[in-house]
């Protein structure tokens, strides 16, 4: 009995170490790459992009497209292909359920904890980062096209 409990404790400790390592790696990954890119910019003399960025002249080619009708057709086809791709995965993904052996009844599972490893503080941080990122994606995405139109025109 004690051996079984010891094994559980060892499993939990090993898992906690791995989860903490994954979280730390995520942070280090971005800090590391941002540092590398900043060093590249400074060493190669490009500047950081705060008032010192530059665009290579003469590189933007013809932007005339295929006329109103042709462009509308291409964009509609793009949306249709996207819908098909999502539809294909909607069909495929639920059919590829990985069976995990004998499962307890839903009633028993409903009584279990949500976590095999309680990490309330880390979860709060990750949820906060998740919300901030969703807002960041929304704001940056919404601002981009108007900025392009104001700066470079239609």
């Amino acid at each position, binding site marked *: 009995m004690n051996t079984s409990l010891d094994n559980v404790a060892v499993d*939990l400790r090993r898992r906690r170490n791995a*989860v903490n390592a994954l979280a730390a790696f*995520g942070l280090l*990954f*971005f800090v590391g*790459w*941002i540092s590398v*890119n900043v060093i*590249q*910019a400074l060493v190669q003399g*490009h*500047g950081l*992009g*705060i008032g010192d*960025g530059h*665009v290579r002249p003469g*590189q933007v*080619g013809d*932007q005339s*497209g295929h006329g109103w009708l042709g*462009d509308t057709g*291409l*964009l509609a*086809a793009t949306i249709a292909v*996207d819908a098909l*791709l999502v539809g294909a*995965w909607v069909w495929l*993904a639920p059919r*590829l*359920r*990985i069976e*995990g052996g004998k*499962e307890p009844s839903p*009633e028993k*599972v*409903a009584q*279990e904890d*949500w*976590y*095999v490893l*309680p*990490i309330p503080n*880390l979860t*709060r941080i*990750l*949820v906060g980062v*998740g919300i901030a*990122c*969703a*807002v*960041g*994606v*929304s*704001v*940056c*995405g*919404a601002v981009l096209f108007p900025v*392009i*139109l104001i700066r*470079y025109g239609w």
Partner: protein
Amino acid sequence: MVSAVSISVSPVTGTFPSTLPTNSEGPLVRQADRVLLVGCLLVGTQLLGPIGLVILIVGVYLLKRAKDAGEDVRPLAVTVFGVFSIVDAATNFLGWSIDTFAHDTHLGQVFMNGFGRLIDGGYYIHYNDLLLGGTGVAGEKSWQIFCVFGVFPLRIVAAWGFMKMKRWGFDMMLITCWMYAVFWFGYILNISVDFENRMGATVFGVVGWWVFDVWYITPFVILPWMYAVNRRKWNR
């Protein structure tokens, strides 16, 4: 097998034993999820992001109402990570689909060349010069095809299944998290190797690229959490 451990009650982390006897989904939760999906897709269009954000907040409020009404509601963390993943994947999916299939349109060229001059030089230097059109960087194009056909549509579907507490949703979420993490490594390495034509040839440079792209870090946020959660809860 790691056993479950009980700790303090929290609606955000969900670290409490569920008291609800079934794994069925109530009508209020279904309604809230539909609102959340609409919000995610609006954010995914980029231009309608702020409207989508407001609709997402309404969706979360509806979830809270469903919980107050006694329905079986998943922890907020599941909703946040699901929504975050759909928003992330949908935004990238649409943008890169335009570069993949509609790079010859006026709209596509104005958008991509503008993005290129502001954020990433790969979208105006030698634009439409390669075999498949669009970005003039071969490495970027290969990542793009990989993601438009595989990672992003699958991730949208996986995140939806994950939010609906489907086992396949959890599994696919885990798989796409690892795919996305590997993608991040290859992608940023690709950009860094070609630095002077990418971040080095734009108005906003390194700072602009990271300010614009750092929000797409879903796998690094979600992966640690997924290895702490009880997978058996995803049993619908």
